[in-house]
């Protein structure tokens, strides 16, 4: 990789000689600040597309919930709120550890600290997915998975099937994002172990953190919409 030493130090816009380039500076950026700003803006823009991506599903949910409120309410009773609430707590804690991991990288903390928080984040992500797997299994056992084997004892079998169609589509898409997130965390943890990050270069941790928080926030919306709304009318 070419660096500042290879040339007779060129002058920058203010007439000062350049500092030697950071080894992580890509050739098409002027400085580390520009590179970091580009990466974070890129992730924010990507998250906007993600909002629209989930937005289509939220739209479907809205329309069908409005069409058959009682059926959706009845169907949502069959979801296990304890598991749902536990998962919500797990994700909120994982967001905390994620934020601490970013902070650790930002302040050039020891690699042990960085790896600890990143590892914890990954761990909580896996706990979430494990609980989700338990819930999905339960739905399979009780024939609440839409399709030819769907069985419903309540008053509104059709809307219930539709509710579970949306439940699986929305939580499934969310789970796919969680799996991707855990994969990203694995890479970032490995990079942290190799002492890649310090106060001059921590953009990958920050960008991965943005993604992780986003996926958490999606769940913060999914949980009340799918598990809670209308619950206190049960009787």
């Amino acid at each position, binding site marked *: 990789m070419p660096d500042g030493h290879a040339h007779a130090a060129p002058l920058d816009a203010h007439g000062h000689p350049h500092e030697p380039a950071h080894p992580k500076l890509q050739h098409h950026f002027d400085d580390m600040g520009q590179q970091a700003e*580009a990466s974070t*803006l890129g992730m924010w823009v990507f998250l906007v*597309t993600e909002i629209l991506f989930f937005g*289509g599903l939220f739209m479907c949910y809205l329309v*069908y919930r409005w069409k058959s409120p009682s059926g959706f309410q009845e169907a949502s009773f069959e979801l296990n709120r304890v598991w749902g609430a536990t998962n919500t707590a797990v994700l909120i804690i994982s967001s905390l550890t994620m934020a601490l991991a970013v902070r650790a990288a930002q302040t050039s903390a020891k690699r042990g600290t960085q790896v600890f928080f990143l590892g914890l984040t990954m761990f909580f992500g896996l706990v979430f997915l494990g609980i989700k797997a338990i819930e999905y299994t339960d739905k399979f056992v009780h024939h609440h998975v839409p399709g030819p084997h769907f069985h419903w004892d309540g008053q509104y079998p059709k809307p219930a*099937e*539709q509710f579970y169609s949306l439940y699986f589509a929305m939580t499934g898409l969310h789970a796919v994002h969680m799996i991707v997130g855990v994969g990203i965390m694995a890479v970032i943890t490995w990079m942290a172990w190799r002492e890649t990050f310090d106060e001059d270069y921590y953009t990958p941790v920050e960008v991965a953190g943005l993604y992780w928080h986003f996926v958490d926030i999606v769940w913060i919306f999914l949980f009340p919409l799918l598990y809670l709304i209308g619950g206190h009318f049960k009787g």
Partner: protein
Amino acid sequence: MDTITTAPTLNYLNSAHGLASWLLTRDHKRIALLYLVSVTAFFAIGGFFAMMIRLELVTPAADFVQPDTYNKLFTMHGVIMVFFFLIPSIPAVLGNFMLPIMVGAKDLAFPRINLLSWYIYVLGGLFTLTAAVTGGVDTGWTFYAPYSTASSNSHVIMAGVGVFITGFSSILTGLNFIVTVHRMRAPGLTWFRLPLFVWSHYATSLIMILGTPVIAITVLLVAVERGLHLGIFDPALGGDPILFQHLFWFYSHPAVYIMILPAMGVTSEIVQAFARKNIFGYAFVAFSSLAIAIIGFLVWGHHLFVSGQSTYAGLIFSILSFLVAIPSAVKVFNWTATIYKGAVSWDSPMLYAFGFVGLFTIGGLTGLFLASMGLDVHVHDTYFIIAHFHYVMVGGAIMGYLGGLHYWWPKITGRMYPEGWAKFAALTVFVGFNLTFFPQFIVGYLGMPRRYAMYAPEFQVYNVMSSAGASILAVGYVIPLIYFIWSLKYAPLAGKDPWGAKGLEWEIPSPPPTENFAVTPIVTERTHQYAPSREVGIA
């Protein structure tokens, strides 16, 4: 003009050799050429389907192909032309090449993501082509449910997955452009000094990142409903097919602006360069791009006037659709005012720009017919619609694409092309296009419905004209293909600024070096400043 005898010794084309240096490149200019080749291939495939359609429609009976085959032909034509040609054409080829240079950057913000977007595009294309080869799709490019989810026996999932995947290539291109424009501009290059080509690509990118995810989730839901019988859109499963139409057009109407806005950007550049005047009303033209992008998101309901949407919703969508005409007209008026009293030269890029302005005007004005609810009931799903959107997409977007390709070809390859042939081809395209599509306005108004292999015998004369025009149009597209390939080796060298145009891209060698700029440029004024405005007498 100086005689140029040698190309710059080291440029992006000869700096590395071998297939791997292309397939693993992160240079935006090389990726643009990868896109150029693949987009051209898809255009040829889509064009082949178009020719089959026109051949079938020469006679009123379904004699060349069976109706089932015909359904697959127009579906594949639509899917390939929309998702694999029109949407990526100008942004991914010309935008990819020019946008970083125009903002004075060495590359796009994310070169690896740029390459990734090309691979995603190719992968999506392979899925869709597999669907075409193994039996085709017959839903129309619109994939309307419940036909697509329950009734059709064709390869809907395969084609849908192809569209889904390709959507991400478009999202990544848009993301890259937005970040590049925000973060990579050269010193002194303020927002209001940006070339209008960059403004239009910025607006296009906004649509790409806001709209494309919605079509992605929608076709994904169609595939899931078809494969797993989840009840989302199929009324038999409790779903709502109108919801599909809403979600589909929420993207697919703005997608029309993904196709036309970049062509408008190209036209703005060409008009300034060949009228030797800076644009009339820069800020209006720049903001009209954003206005089209924003209003474009609020008009999708005009596709649902006859789908059972409420009259009041229709009324609102009708009014909003009329609003799009305002920024579009601003552009047309400002191009015209730019040409007025300009030192106009009639080189081939300018011919395409003239073609664009004229044909887009017809396409846009007939769009107003369709935005009127009452009239739309009469012409809905007729050839009037076909003619309208082909005037915008072929007469507009493809004219812009060809114009831009001719304008920047010397920059991209370092060589000129035979100008005489180029003029001839531009005229052939113009004549062939109008002969193909103008009769369709008439026959559509008379009541010929779209998407049928057969039609009433009294419509035959219009259809024969259309088919004849299509073959002329095809010739018009093949001629540039030949002389562009020929020019790579045999045409005279272009030098850095063959048109005498102004702009950052014309200040660097042709073909540009890999890093674009040896020294980061410092920008002090807008592009296309050909004369002090006081001398011309126009502020």
